């Protein structure tokens, strides 16, 4: 079959993973699956938040843009969750719809409420640059499935970075009101930056399968503060939040997000349309 030299020549997909599961090959270890779960949860939860903007954005183009970005993230989440679930004989839907709050391992940044448009753009700037750095590096993972998902995602996230940077400039250098709101958004979300880059013992043991979060901080610090300053804004000087998202600790808004995301699947398990 295709397992010799997979990294170079082959194709990786949800179906591939399912087939390999049947033969007992290609299944991630529990530790790799937990890593993929965290990445999938980050993408899933931010996708859910961005979906809330549809029909509420300040202009039609932004309805479309935020919807498109959310759709890309949902695609990444589906790939990561399918891969993670294959270790535990769970589907992507089992993981998305039938876990409870403490079982979700997303960073807290991604669950924070949308706030106003500038607040969402502040979250998008932090998130997009983080994803861009992460997927750029994960493309070189020794796990071919993670590398393939990252290679696809990296191309899409580049557009998301561009979108958020352009908006931060426009809002920061726009009117007094847009400037005030953009700064308020950054101030409110900055405490959640630190958690993205904390060393994680569960990742240390994965070697070159995973990207150690603390190694991404330099790239983030080279990019984001520069965008903030050139937009006439100030890099917030605030203490980091306690964090703990990867360990299942979430902020008070998270239960409401899950309720909305999961209610249909839980009321009608197995429903299709």
């Amino acid at each position, binding site marked *: 079959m295709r397992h010799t030299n997979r990294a170079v020549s*082959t*194709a*990786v*997909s*949800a*179906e*591939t993973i399912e087939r390999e599961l049947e033969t007992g090959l290609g299944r991630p270890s529990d530790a790799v699956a937990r890593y993929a779960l965290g990445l999938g949860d980050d993408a899933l939860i931010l996708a859910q938040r961005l979906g809330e903007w549809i029909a509420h954005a300040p202009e039609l*183009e932004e309805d*479309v*843009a935020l*919807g*498109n*970005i959310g*759709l*890309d*993230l*949902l*695609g*990444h989440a*589906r*790939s990561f969750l399918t891969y993670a679930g294959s270790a535990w004989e769970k589907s992507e839907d089992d993981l998305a719809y039938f876990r409870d709050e403490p079982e979700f391992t997303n960073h807290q940044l991604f669950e924070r409420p949308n706030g106003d448009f500038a607040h969402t753009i502040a979250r998008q700037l932090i998130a997009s640059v983080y994803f861009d750095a992460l997927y750029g590096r994960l493309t070189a993972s020794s796990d*071919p499935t993670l*590398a*393939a*998902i990252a*290679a*696809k*995602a990296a*191309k*899409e996230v580049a*557009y998301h970075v*561009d*979108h958020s940077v352009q908006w931060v400039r426009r809002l920061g250098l726009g009117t007094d009101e847009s400037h005030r709101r953009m700064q308020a958004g950054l101030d409110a979300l900055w405490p959640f930056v630190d958690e993205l880059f904390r060393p994680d013992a569960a990742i240390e043991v994965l070697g070159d399968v995973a990207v150690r979060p603390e190694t991404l901080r330099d790239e983030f610090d080279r990019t984001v503060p520069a965008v903030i300053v050139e937009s006439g804004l100030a890099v917030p000087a605030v203490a980091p939040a306690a964090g703990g998202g990867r360990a299942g600790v979430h902020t008070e808004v998270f239960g409401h997000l899950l309720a909305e995301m999961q209610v249909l699947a839980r009321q009608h398990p197995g429903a299709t349309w």
Partner: protein
Amino acid sequence: MDVTLAKDDERRVWALAATVCDPEVPVLTIEDLGVLRSVHVADRDGAPAVTVEITPTYSGCPAIDAMHDDIVTTLTDAGYDDVTVRTVLAPAWTTDWMSEAGKAKLEAFGIAPPAPRSAVHGGDGRVGLGLGIRCPHCGSLHTREVSHFGSTSCKALYVCQKCGEPFDHFKAH
């Protein structure tokens, strides 16, 4: 199965699968798009077992499910009962895989085709200049991007400043 026969079968299956169109850009076949990646015909107890590989343009592209079903229907109608369609992520799809015929069809349909990706992203250390996107209606290069994100994941929204018409541009990716 005889090797030559299998090759003939693969050519036939490719030709059939290549007739399936993108549901969101119905003038383009999945072959034009470069979404159709490979066809494999194996022998399963004397009957052909077909595997078709397609690659999504974007991770969350909803059209991939429709393409999947259309390929199965097309091949089943042609007498292939054992069909597997796999959606593969690696290597990642790029607009450079779109055929020249496909780009011409896109433009005729009113969608500005993607420029070669190398011209947009450099890639060899050189910084490429973004070329003007030509209006598919009047041919003017005096156009403006309205939004990076368009009606589907793969498109951006433009407007022509000469004829005033809005149009979609298939993003180089």
